[in-house]
Every structure is written in C-alpha cells, then in structure tokens.
C-alpha cells in the first residue's frame, strides 16, 4: 500500500496544482448555490423539506463531480504516455487504481465540505438536526464515490478522454434511472433492476430524507468495489492486448 500512498500524493497534488479540478468545483458550487437560492429558499416551507430539496439537487452535482473528477485519471495518462512510468514500476494495478481513486475522493470530499454552508444556513434558521445533515452528506459522498469509481473504470477503458467521459456519464445516468425503467417491467426483472438502482431507491428514498439504511451503505460500497475491480482488471487486460 506504500505505492498507493505515493500515487495518492501525486494525484492530489495534481488536482491542487491544476486549475481544472478547481474550475469543476467552482462551477458546481456556483450552480448548486443558485439552485439552493431559487428552489430551496422559495416561500415558506418546513426546514426539513428545504433540506430534503437541497439534498435532492445536490445529489446531481455530487454525481456529476464524481464523473468529472475521474474520467481523465487513466485516459489522460495514456494520452500523455506517462502511464508507462506506472506500468513499468514495481507497482500493482490495484495500487494504481486505489491511489488515483482516493485522491479524487479526497477532492470530492473537499467539494462537499465547501457546500456545507447551505445546510448550515438551514440549520441556523430552521429546526433540523446535525444527524440529518450528516446522513444526507454521507449519501452525497457515497453517491459521488460511486460515480467516481464508474468514471475511473471508463477512464481505464480508453485513451480518449471524451469517450471515457461519455461512457462514464452513460453508465451513471442509466444506473441512476434504472428504477424508472423497472416500474414499467414485470417481476422478476423489475425486482433485479430495482436493486441495482443508484439514485431513486437508495438516495431519494433514504439518505435524502435523513434515513440511514445499512443496506444502502453496503450497496454503494459494493458498487464502488465492483467498478474499481473492473478498472483493475481492465488495466491488467491491457498488458495482454
């Protein structure tokens, strides 16, 4: 895991040095803030409803941030030929993927921390608990981490960043809306699709409302593991191609 730490430090340094990561965060925070002003703060509402609405649209930004922060991670290295340094060093593919994932996750965490002022404003002016905010943010973090893992997998597939972005966005959008498709189908396909939904069932029905279900946490963790494993296997397979 020493190599993971080395790669993590380089990647995080790269995020902090390059303007791209900061621009992504700034734009998402700006739009998130506008949405908060326009949709969450309109008229008289219960503070719990305002918070719920805030988490609802913030989940789009957390998901988008995950994809936007990850689609370049491997594809860009291949395009710039710097991937060879990693692939010819005594470093396991798992360590490469983990180092990059954890760096992007840290930057995603920074984005979420910077958005905390909005729920804190609701807390100051309304009657919500810290636990509701915490559960909502755990949901945002897990959702963002999942789309980040999806983006990393897509990035491992190709050297073309645009293709990686499109593939990651497509997977994330489909998995986030598979519940809608499931409602139009019959059992048992419906039951299966409902279980793999990323947003409607897990987030909207749980974290967004301040409800913490362990099975939802496990689902997100399992999905993250699944896509990270796919990314590792994709890197391994590239050596055989």
């Amino acid at each position: 895991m020493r190599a993971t730490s080395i790669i993590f430090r380089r990647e995080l340094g790269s995020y902090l040095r390059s303007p791209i990561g900061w621009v992504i965060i700034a734009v998402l925070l700006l739009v998130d803030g506008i949405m908060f002003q326009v949709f969450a703060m309109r008229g008289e509402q219960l503070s719990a409803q305002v918070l719920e609405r805030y988490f609802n649209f913030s989940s789009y930004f957390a998901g988008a941030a995950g994809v936007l922060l990850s689609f370049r991670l491997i594809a860009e290295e291949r395009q710039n030929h710097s991937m060879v340094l990693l692939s010819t060093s005594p470093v396991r593919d798992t360590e490469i993927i983990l180092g990059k994932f954890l760096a992007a996750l840290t930057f995603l965490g920074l984005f979420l921390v910077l958005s905390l002022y909005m729920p804190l404003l609701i807390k100051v002016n309304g009657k919500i608990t810290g636990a509701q905010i915490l559960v909502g943010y755990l949901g945002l973090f897990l959702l963002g981490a999942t789309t980040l893992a999806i983006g990393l997998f897509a990035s491992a597939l190709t050297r073309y960043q645009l293709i990686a972005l499109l593939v990651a966005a497509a997977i994330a959008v489909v998995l986030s809306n598979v519940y809608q498709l499931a409602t139009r189908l019959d059992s048992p396909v419906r039951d299966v699709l409902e279980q793999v939904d990323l947003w409607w069932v897990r987030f909207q029905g749980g974290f967004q409302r301040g409800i913490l279900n362990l099975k939802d946490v496990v689902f997100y963790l399992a999905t993250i593991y699944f896509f990270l494993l796919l990314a590792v296997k994709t890197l391994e397979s590239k050596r055989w191609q």
Partner: protein
Amino acid sequence: MIRATNVSKFYGGKRALGPVSFEINPGETVGFLGLNGAGKTTALRILACDLRPSNGTVEVGGVDAVADPHEVRKRIGFLPENPPLYTDMTVIDYLKFAGELRGMTATQVKKRMSEVLEVTDLTDVSGDFIGTLSHGYRQRVGVAQAIIHQPKFLILDEPTRGLDPVQIVEMRNLIHDLKQNHTVLISSHILTEISQTCDRLLVLGKGELLGKGTESELASHKGEIRAITVTLRGADKAAMKTVLAAIDGVTKVAEPYEQGGGLSFSLSTNKDCRAEVSRAIVEAKLDLLKLDYSRSELENTFIRLVGGADASN
C-alpha cells in the same frame, strides 16, 4: 542476464513479434536495429514488463518476467519512445516520485538525486516545471527517471528520437557514461547511433530476428564486397592506381576523382584490408590524406538483412 526464448506477440490476430530468442549478457550494450514497425518497441516493452508476451519466456536476472513481473520491474529502468513525464511537476519532484515508485525511500532518493542530476546534466533545471523544458531536456529527464533506482538493466527505446544534432551527440555521450554501470539495450533505426554505442546488434525485420552479432560479424558475409576510399596527394594517377590494385584483398580500383586537394580512389575489397592499404601507400612513398573504411558497412548489412526479410514476405 536477459534471456528471451521463443517470444512472440500478437495484437489481435496480427503478429507483431517473433518467435524470437536472444540473450543479453551482463555489462553488454546491445542495439535493437530495425525499420519502423520491425517489432523493436514491442520487444522492449515485453522486456520492461509493460506488455506480456503471447508466447515464450523472458528471464531477467534469473527471474521469470511473466510469472513475477513485479520483481523484474525493480531491476529494469525503461525509457520509452515518448518519455513518461508529468508536465505539471518540477524535475526534482518528478524524479522523487519515480524513485519512490521504484521502491526507494525518501532518504535514498535524496542521496541519489544529485548524482542523477549530474550524470544527466539536469542540475540547472532541477527546479523547473517539466512542461517548460525543451525536447532535449525532457529526453534527459526520461533517462534520469530510468536510472534513479540504479537498475541493472537499462532499456532505451529510440533515445535520440526528435533531438537536434547537438542533443544527439550529448545523448550519445550520456549513453556512453551509462554503459559503465548498466547493461544497456537501445533500439533505433538510425544506423550510426547503433554502431557508435553498441557492442552487439540484434537486427529485427517484420517481427523476426534477422541477425545477431557484432557489427563485423554481421558484415562478414562470404563474398561480401567492402569499400575503402583513400585520398592521395600526387600527380601520377596511373602509378597510384597500380600500387592500390596490387594490394592483397583489393579486387577493384575505381577511376579516381579530385577531392580535398588530392585524388580519391574507391577500392572494392573482399576483406578488411585497411592495414595493408595504409602500409602499401606508405611504402610507395605516397602522401595519404584520408582513408575511409566505408561507413556504409553496417548500412549494407542492414539493407541485406532487412531486404532479405522483405523479399521473403
């Protein structure tokens, strides 16, 4: 020692390399010579454990590169065709990163850093961002990352690619220095580069190993015609030609032409008879201005080998 046995590589259904077998002994500097698409880069990437062979075995220092690539990578420094650089890092930060990736501790990297910067002549730009460096310096940074962990085996894929003439000479000198402490493999399609830096050559063409040996071994083909050009000062053209034609090994003396204040004679020979030619000229009391054992020797060998491969394909 590096030992490749029946190594081949297929991209999809297309054969890019092999099967080829060769050995590289410790301390040797070996050149992979071949035209573009000959399989040089594929061979080097397999040796550097960046690619896995489709068939065959590769042993580096007694370790199986397919079964234990992790261990082999510790022993190898690799400069690919395009140096693997992070343009957003300074030279010193990048080398620290590369060293630590290869298993060095921060203290070990710190100790080794000044030595590497000095060998690669990067001291003056060590604090600069790689993105601001010229192509020549970037190539040097590429070499620096390959040697930071003091590997036994150094693999350089087209190290002079894209360099200007001055940078080529500098890179050649750098490689010469590296030969002292490493077993070096260099790939190139530039004949002079290979002939000036390598002890032994492996000639690749269309994925096959067409020849191996030293430059003279490869050139010592039965009946091979070699060329020597001598430039002599004097007026008696016929007498000079007679002296040259009488030398053992000289099969033909072409009509001379004026060059550099003298007369240049092109001699066709059936063996390396530079010593006999110079001795005969001195004994005949002729003024020798220049003797050139044709630089095209390797070129001829290369064309013969590669031309044969082309003809057979």
